[in-house]
């Protein structure tokens, strides 16, 4: 007879970004058997897009998410390039890269400064009423302001390029709509020194915390071997935009640093990736097809990109990358170091933005190639802040969408998030009583991956965070609620 089970459910239903909950499954002895990160909001954008012109996909998919619209914008435009079968002008390529670097900067800034740093600075067991950005302001107002300034900088670059901070339908199939003027270029450049200074201060602060008080988190918050997947550039350079072209491609490495696959083409993603479906979540579980759902589970995003690359290619970021590897190994398996990886990537973004802005061709005016429908199926790829993003379209002879498949970054970290929650629950759950400390750490484990579930209506109403402990007899044993 199977041993009786008890279930703890952590159920935050949030207003904007989809519905999610966490269930911790106990065995008869009261030990954690497994944990599941549920996403219960059905995403129907693929169906919604059918029948629309492919040229509208950049503008439509950018509205999927209020947090990372640029990622969908760029992936959609790149897929459109392939349907047109054009090579976009070099300046358009540089401008798209500039926008993606700004997007990664602002997204990572929100994650580090406002969502996660209150945990580091105020402590996991501090009052939840204070363990937020307001507590951060009280404890370290300069850091809180710096986070906003850095995010503003990234958003400002996006707005300067695209005319809107959100939903900038500026990147289009064939290139971009508008070139970059010299005045705008100079305004962006003028903001870089402050952005560098903020990032360097944050790096110093976080590395000190890692050295002095975050050792346990490195061991417990999602530390396990897995594969890592993402784009790399020529010679294994850190890459965030180009797919299979000019020596670039998708690389997969394992935790020992062995390259499992290299130079993979996004067009062939279905041959090397598969998606498992679980009845308890609408978020799929992508895995490396040849290895199966367990062994083929992989991580994407900032830590994966730093594990995959040989080097970043800019001076300051490469110095930090070396230090990261001295701290965590050639391939870093501690998910808690996603936070450090974000700061290193911000530094890399700022350095690469400076390089692009110093390039005299960045203000060239030929930024768009034009053509008709020359291919009926295409796959575009880009590195979103949270990881590799695939757009796959099939169109008819008029360019109307017949089928769409989107593989989003958060979904690719789904397996890793579940393993992280399980690891934390096993370490911190004791007996049948739920504690704020456990809840805080489970949430923080998920936050390492900075999941973005922004595919929901935003007006469904904010719900409390509810944790339930259900005994083997079905009776409610304990409840923890956070309004």
């Amino acid at each position, binding site marked *: 007879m199977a041993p009786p089970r008890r279930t703890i459910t952590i159920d935050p239903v949030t207003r904007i970004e989809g519905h999610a909950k966490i269930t911790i499954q106990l065995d008869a002895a009261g030990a954690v058997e497994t944990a599941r990160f549920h996403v219960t909001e059905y995403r129907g*954008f693929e*169906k919604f897009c059918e029948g629309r012109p492919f040229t509208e996909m950049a503008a439509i998919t950018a509205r999927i998410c209020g947090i990372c619209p640029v990622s969908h914008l760029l992936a959609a435009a790149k897929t459109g390039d392939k349907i047109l079968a054009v090579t976009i002008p070099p300046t358009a390529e540089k401008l798209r890269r500039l926008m993606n670097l700004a997007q990664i900067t602002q997204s990572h800034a929100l994650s580090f400064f406002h969502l996660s740093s209150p945990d580091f600075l105020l402590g996991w067991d501090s009052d939840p009423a204070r363990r937020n950005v307001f507590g951060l302001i009280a404890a370290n107002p300069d850091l809180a302001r710096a986070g906003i300034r850095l995010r503003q900088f990234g958003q400002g*670059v996006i707005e300067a390029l695209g005319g809107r901070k959100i939903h900038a339908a*500026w990147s289009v199939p064939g290139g971009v709509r508008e070139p970059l003027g010299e005045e705008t270029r100079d305004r962006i450049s003028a903001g870089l020194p402050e952005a560098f200074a903020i990032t360097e201060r944050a790096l110093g602060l976080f590395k000190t915390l890692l050295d002095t008080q975050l050792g346990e988190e490195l061991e417990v918050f999602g530390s396990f071997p897995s594969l890592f997947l993402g784009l790399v550039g020529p010679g294994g350079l850190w890459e965030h935009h180009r797919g299979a072209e000019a020596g670039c491609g998708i690389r997969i490495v394992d935790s020992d640093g062995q390259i499992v696959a290299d130079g993979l083409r996004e067009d062939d993603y279905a041959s090397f990736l598969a998606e498992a479906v679980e009845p308890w979540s609408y978020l799929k579980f992508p895995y490396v097809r040849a290895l199966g759902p367990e062994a083929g589970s992989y991580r994407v995003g900032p830590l994966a990109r730093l594990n995959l690359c040989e080097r970043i290619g800019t001076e300051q970021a490469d110095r930090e990358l070396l230090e990261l590897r001295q701290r965590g190994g050639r391939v870093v398996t501690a998910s808690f170091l996603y936070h450090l990886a974000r700061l290193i990537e911000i530094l890399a973004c700022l350095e690469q933005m400076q390089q692009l802005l110093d390039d005299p061709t960045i203000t060239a005016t030929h930024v768009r190639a034009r053509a008709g429908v020359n291919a009926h199926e295409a796959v575009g790829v880009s590195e979103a802040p949270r990881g590799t993003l695939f757009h796959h379209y099939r169109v008819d002879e008029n360019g109307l969408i017949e089928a769409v498949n989107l593989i989003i970054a958060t979904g690719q970290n789904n397996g890793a998030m579940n393993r992280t929650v399980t690891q934390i629950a096993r370490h911190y759950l004791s007996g049948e009583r739920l504690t704020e400390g456990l809840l805080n750490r489970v949430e923080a484990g998920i936050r390492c991956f900075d999941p973005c579930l922004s595919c929901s209506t935003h*007006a469904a109403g904010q719900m409390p965070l509810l944790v339930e402990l259900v005994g083997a007899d079905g009776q409610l044993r304990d409840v923890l609620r956070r309004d």
Partner: protein
Amino acid sequence: MGTGLGGRRGNGASGLRRHGAGRLVIGIGNSLRQDDGVGWRVAEVLAARVEAGALAQLEVLAVQQLTPELVEPIAAASAVVLVDAVITAVPNPGADASLGLPPLHLDPLRPASASARAPLTHHATSAGLLSLTTALHGTCPSAWQLLIPIASACTGFGEELSPGTSARLAEAVELLTAWAHRHA
């Protein structure tokens, strides 16, 4: 805005941003989710009025969700209104005048100690954003919120508003136009 970038129009200007006016309207919503996007639509209509010269010196922002950097335009404003949708139990609010729904109105909005944060997401509230503005800048402008009731059934995928919410959009635009004139 702080970086010297956000206070200027980009070279692909959308027509949604007007700066340096003192009064600010922020429309919130997902324009791909039917009535959920009514706040965004209100902002678009108001921006068009500003563009046409019918409203002077009004800054209008349309956002899909509230984010921390919005404290900067809020702090720079003399008065602000946040326009958003709110789910009601009424099946199609605004569609049938016989339901006797009260007219839309502006509710004073005060900084709230947003003690809780969304545990796993990037969620922020209007009152929390005002509180953040106060915490960072030591002051906060007079603020109101305009909540437009919508039905949960009208938040599927789509860009069209329901008839009832379309009517409410027009009502909201007139209400905000009058507000802008009063605070000129």
